[in-house]
């Protein structure tokens, strides 16, 4: 059981301090570190870590910006010195965070909480990383979604629908539908086609959220999702949809 971890902080001393604190935790395996958001992005894409420790205020992009650019967000523990803006964001969005200088007890609680969450769900850190050779996102992967002041970590299985809006995609989950800066085509490439289905030019739906299926004009279909959204399936995709469903 080792957790691949990357530490992202613009201060060398802060990274060192965190490394030192993390020596206590045998399961945490620090594979790399980054001194700014851009470097962090590259290292995350390269190593596909299970966990990152992320500072918010960094030169160039902030920690939030970094997350919003990731396709798949790893587990995140935010670290910050006293920063009113970040603290407000954490409170509003119920994100887990550590205040620098980090208290060892709080650090240990945060790490325990991570593994507790993992035990409750069916996948763990280690077998999770096994699936991550490819770039395909699984249902249990989470994405970070930021919309103005608000942000969320969303599990893919909670997402009902992606809707294309120009260069953005609108993400439907629970009662929220924020925008993310990703095109529908880029998303489709990354999503598991067994679960996420391209219904038409503008929509990708989560098959597990279908409530009702009705025939529609021109031999197409009309799907109603559990959230109440009605999505038309184009004729070409209907053939594919029926094929998938009959299997």
């Amino acid at each position, binding site marked *: 059981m080792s957790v691949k971890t990357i530490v992202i902080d*613009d*201060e*060398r*001393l*802060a990274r*060192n*301090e965190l490394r*030192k604190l993390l020596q206590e935790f045998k399961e945490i395996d620090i594979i790399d570190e980054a001194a*700014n958001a*851009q470097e962090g992005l590259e290292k995350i894409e390269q190593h596909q870590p299970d966990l990152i420790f992320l500072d918010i*205020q960094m*030169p*160039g992009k902030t920690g939030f910006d970094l997350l919003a650019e990731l396709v798949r967000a790893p587990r995140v523990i935010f670290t910050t*010195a*006293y*920063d009113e803006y970040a603290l407000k964001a954490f409170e509003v969005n119920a994100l887990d965070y550590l*205040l*620098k*200088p*980090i208290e060892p007890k709080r650090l240990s609680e945060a790490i325990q909480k991570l593994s507790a969450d993992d035990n409750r769900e069916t996948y763990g850190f280690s077998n999770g990383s096994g699936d991550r050779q490819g770039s395909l996102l699984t249902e249990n992967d989470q994405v970070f979604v930021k919309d103005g002041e608000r942000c969320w970590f969303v599990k893919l299985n909670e997402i009902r629908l992606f809707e294309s809006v120009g260069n953005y995609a609108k993400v439907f989950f629970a009662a929220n539908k924020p925008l993310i800066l990703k095109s529908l085509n880029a998303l489709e490439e990354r999503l598991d086609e067994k679960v996420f289905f391209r219904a038409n030019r503008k929509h990708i739906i989560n098959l597990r959220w279908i409530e009702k299926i009705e025939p529609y004009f021109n031999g197409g279909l009309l799907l109603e999702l559990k959230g109440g959204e009605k999505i038309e399936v184009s004729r070409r995709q209907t053939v594919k949809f029926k094929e998938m469903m009959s299997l």
Partner: protein
Amino acid sequence: MFTFRFMIRNISKYWLCQIGGWSTYIIVYTFFFLTLRTQEQPYFYKVLFLDAFLGVIVTHIMRNVIRKLGFLRLPLEQQIVYIFLTTIGFSFLFAFSSIFVEDFLNFTSEQFKQYTMINKTMRASFGCFLFLLIWNLIYFTYHYVVKSRQEQLDKIRLQSLVKELELKTIKSHINPHFIFNALNSIRALVDENPERARQAITELSNILRSSMQAEKLETAPLERELNIVKDYLALEYIRFEDRLNVEYDIDEDTLNQPVPPMMLQTLVENAIKHGISKLVNGGIIKITSDFTQDFHELIVENTGRMNGDFNPDGFGLHSTKNRLMLMYGDKATFKITNEGNDRVKAVVTMPATIIL
């Protein structure tokens, strides 16, 4: 003599005005009576004194009514309406009472005796109305002026209180983000470089102590402020390492110049927060202090660029402007501008102080 003065002092302004006003009434009437008299008026003096006496009583009752009903607290438009209504009402009362008493004491001249009571009252009311109107105008105007002056005074007092409070919070303002980051760096240094860690603790305590003392000071010599900034930048250097470069260009003669405490520190903190900390490769901070003509000029420059959404009225800069204004009025200026593409320059000019 003493008792007389004591009495004078104890008589309220209201009664002084009453006595003064009605005495004037008597004097003016006597004057016209003596100079312009056209016909015999046997009861003139008796009637005159009686009217003045009744005038005092009636207006005093009127004043009590006005106070009881709180007319003075009403908005101006309503006050004007009520002045007229009370004046009309009381002029009837005034006229009636004077006619009644005159009749009773038999002061009425022969020619008026033929008229009825009502007729006489109506005639007299006109004259009474004028006097009471003048009385009321003086009364209401006086209170209006006093009230608005009081309001103005309260407003000024409130403003200065707000300023004082603002100044206090501004002075004690050291960014908590900085303090906790510094503490975090120091904790890491304890293992890596214990000597530097000890030094850093001293620097941090100097800054904290200075910021607390700043609350008590009106001004501080530049040298003291410069030492705080040097400690501050030394601590930030631990954080930013090679990303932070500092240059000083200080005219030694300016070291004794008084400056607002913690102002330079605020400017440098801003330069770090909005400049250096945003740049992946860091940059330079340059502090300049010099005389230009009769002014003492403090300049803080940093690598970076203010962009559109950067708010120049942000807490630090806004407070700098305010403090300079409070201390020097419009003799001091504060400007912050982009210089070229990658430099921000903050300039404070204050009147130079001659130190003997």
